[in-house]
């Protein structure tokens, strides 16, 4: 597995660090260094709150390689409260039905595992239903 590739994304995967545009104040995730809103350079790091709501979602029953052990799993487009939309799995759902507009928050979870016993275990962000105490 491609360890350097995942290592270099650790700020994004573990801390949801994107960028803020110093010219138009747009928040960017994933980071892309050029602001898609005003076209100017945007390299200032910005840590997102991890709070957002479900914009769309689907539950996958035919898993691709690397995800066989988690099937079925639910992937969502999560609209962060700062503006950007992020693709992420939903977790800790229990019996709760997912709905568009449902408030969610970021947590760190195991994303996938390579096939063999020496394979890399990859961690990163997922989103769970916003906990009651967190809204206080």
């Amino acid at each position, binding site marked *: 597995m491609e360890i350097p590739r995942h290592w270099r994304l650790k700020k994004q995967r573990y801390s949801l660090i994107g960028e803020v545009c110093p010219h138009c104040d747009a928040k960017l995730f994933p980071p892309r260094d050029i602001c898609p809103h005003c076209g100017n350079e945007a390299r200032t790091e910005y840590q997102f709150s991890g709070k957002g709501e479900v*914009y769309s979602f689907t539950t996958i029953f*035919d898993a691709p*390689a690397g995800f066989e052990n988690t099937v079925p799993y639910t*992937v969502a487009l999560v609209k962060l409260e700062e503006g950007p939309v*992020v*693709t992420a*799995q939903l977790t800790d759902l229990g019996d709760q039905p997912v709905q*568009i507009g449902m408030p969610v928050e970021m947590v760190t979870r195991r994303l996938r595992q390579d096939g063999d016993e020496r394979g890399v275990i990859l961690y990163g962000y997922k989103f769970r239903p916003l906990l009651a105490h967190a809204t206080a």
Partner: protein
Amino acid sequence: MTEVVIAGIGQVPVGEHYNASLRGLALDAIELALRDAGGLRPDILYVANMLAPVISGQAHLGALIADFGGLVGIEAATIEAGGASGGAALRMGYLAIKAGQANAALVVGVEKITDQLGAGSEASQMLNVDSDYEAVQGMTPISQAAMLMRRYQYEYNPPRAAFGGFARVAHANAVSNPHAMYRSALSAEAYDQASVVSDPLNMFDVAPAADGAAAVLLARRDLLPQATHPLVRISGSSQASGRLALHDREDILDLEPARVSVERACRQAAIRPGEVDLFELYDSSSILAVLSLEAAGFAPHGQGWRLAQDGQLGLDGLLPISTFGGLKARGNPGGATGLYQAVEAALQLRGEAGKNQVPDAHRALIQCLGGPAANAVTHVLERT
């Protein structure tokens, strides 16, 4: 102005060809196209392919297919643009002739999906989504389409069964296509009862990935010897790209590259989209058929689903689509799909579509998409 025409066409049946190789399938399609062109030889070969480096462990298809296609020595390269590879290669062939760099360009699309099965096959499809930010979360092209459909239902609230109309049109047309993968009609009941693949998408909302190869020989009109069949010319050609990942788009239900490429191709052909006699669209999922129709301007946003409700999209309808089964029932052989669309549209415009003939077809719109329109290639074809 140089006029570019389709001098020859060839296609093999779409399906699961466990006995056939990548190079073998391509050769079959090439031989048919060259024979159809009456012996005209190409100066350039473009190979459209999406997944061979991963599925078959084979890159450098330009040299391979030229070598095993009896064309060794020719200028040859692979063209890849995800699911739009076939359309992109067709456009490259068109541009090569327009630019005066070739008198005849052979464009072959080939895909060999069944060299891998199951989870490995699903994983290869993930190559076309954003690897760092989508695939790592388990997102696949099918789940992208499911996200689009969920949001579409939320915003516009169409009846769930309405999406079945697109699969039923495709299957009805595939019955009489000997090159189609699924030559069976689909009932509304079977659609309603189909198992869920990635909700809300069910099995019949999704086109089957399959093996296949199709080829066209493009040529300068003025250099053609006496043609043995009616000629079809390319009167409009356009490609547009958009943001790769769904999450980076302003409005996921607006397939902007599809819209832009239709506008440009039609402007070049000096027509409005409504003046075409058929539309080979990219129905890799029923929701993409809906959104493609909306992007091309055949229906307002949120209304495209209505087109499948009253027979408008059938062979005798106002706007026939997927006239040989589309991706849904003819099958979706990845990088070859755009070439199947070109071959099928040429058959329609030549009046050689048999039971699938659209009455008096003289102009066709064909479009293939990479992902949910991260890339779109649109061509206008006309009978000369």
